[in-house]
């Protein structure tokens, strides 16, 4: 295998804080799941979105990498999100 040139590095974010955030948010999610009604759905979807964003932006480095990668990723979400959101909202 040929030697690859190193890419420019950003300052390492505090991954430990991201991990703690993900664990705390998951625990909150479990607590929220015992609620009922529209508030429960809204809170759970918001918490899941924040958790997914934490992983994608920090662990997957999308916050620091080329915007092209973000466009690729968002393209898939744009194509599928309307279907999933519609089904979540209309599911009894």
């Amino acid at each position, binding site marked *: 295998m*040929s*030697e690859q040139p190193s890419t420019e590095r950003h300052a390492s974010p505090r991954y430990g804080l991201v*991990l703690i955030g993900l664990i705390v948010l998951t625990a909150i999610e479990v607590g929220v799941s015992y609620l009922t009604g529209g508030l*429960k759905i809204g809170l759970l979807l918001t918490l*899941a979105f924040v958790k*997914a964003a934490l992983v994608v932006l920090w662990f997957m480095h999308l916050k620091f990498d080329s915007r092209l*990668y973000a466009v*690729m990723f968002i393209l898939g979400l744009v194509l599928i999100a309307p279907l999933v959101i519609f089904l979540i909202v209309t*599911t009894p």
Partner: protein
Amino acid sequence: MNNELEHGHEAYVPQRENTKVGFWVFLSGEVILFGVLIGSFLLFKSHHADEFAEATAGLSIPLIALNTFILIFSSFMVVRALEALRNGSLKGLRNNLIAVLVLGALFLGGQAFEWMQLYNEGIWFDSAFGTPFLTTTGIHGSHVFIGLLWVIFILLGIRKNAYSKTRFHGVEVFGLYWHFVDVVWIVLFTVFYLL
């Protein structure tokens, strides 16, 4: 251009970037795959609300929450593995990846236990709940399994000096895959178990 042709290793830079771009395109396709699976689950749920309510009441949230913690923690270990490699520590890379291997296996063990529980309760692929639930969690589980094979491949590569402080892109792309599998589980945990 001439410079790139004369110095082959310089032409490697765009090739490497292409790999990463290509992998993000692959992940975009995976978003659509899992989006369709989640959509199917919700569609089944809207037509069999009573059966879903009964089946989800029997799911063990503490067990799945533990499994979620395990997968999130494994993602953190992948980050640490890449950081170790970029700091030149092959030992750190190896140790963190072994932790990922153990955590991933624990996750699959938890999922297998859940599937056995469902089977004993009469929920399998032929039921309205089992069809979308087991198909989606099964496809996700197969992604975890493939990820574990990938970890073993990297561990073997370490023995052959395939990675170094400047040769980290194979591990970086694996990291993208593993974190994506984690993101999918974050969504499945919410939509399938908590909503």
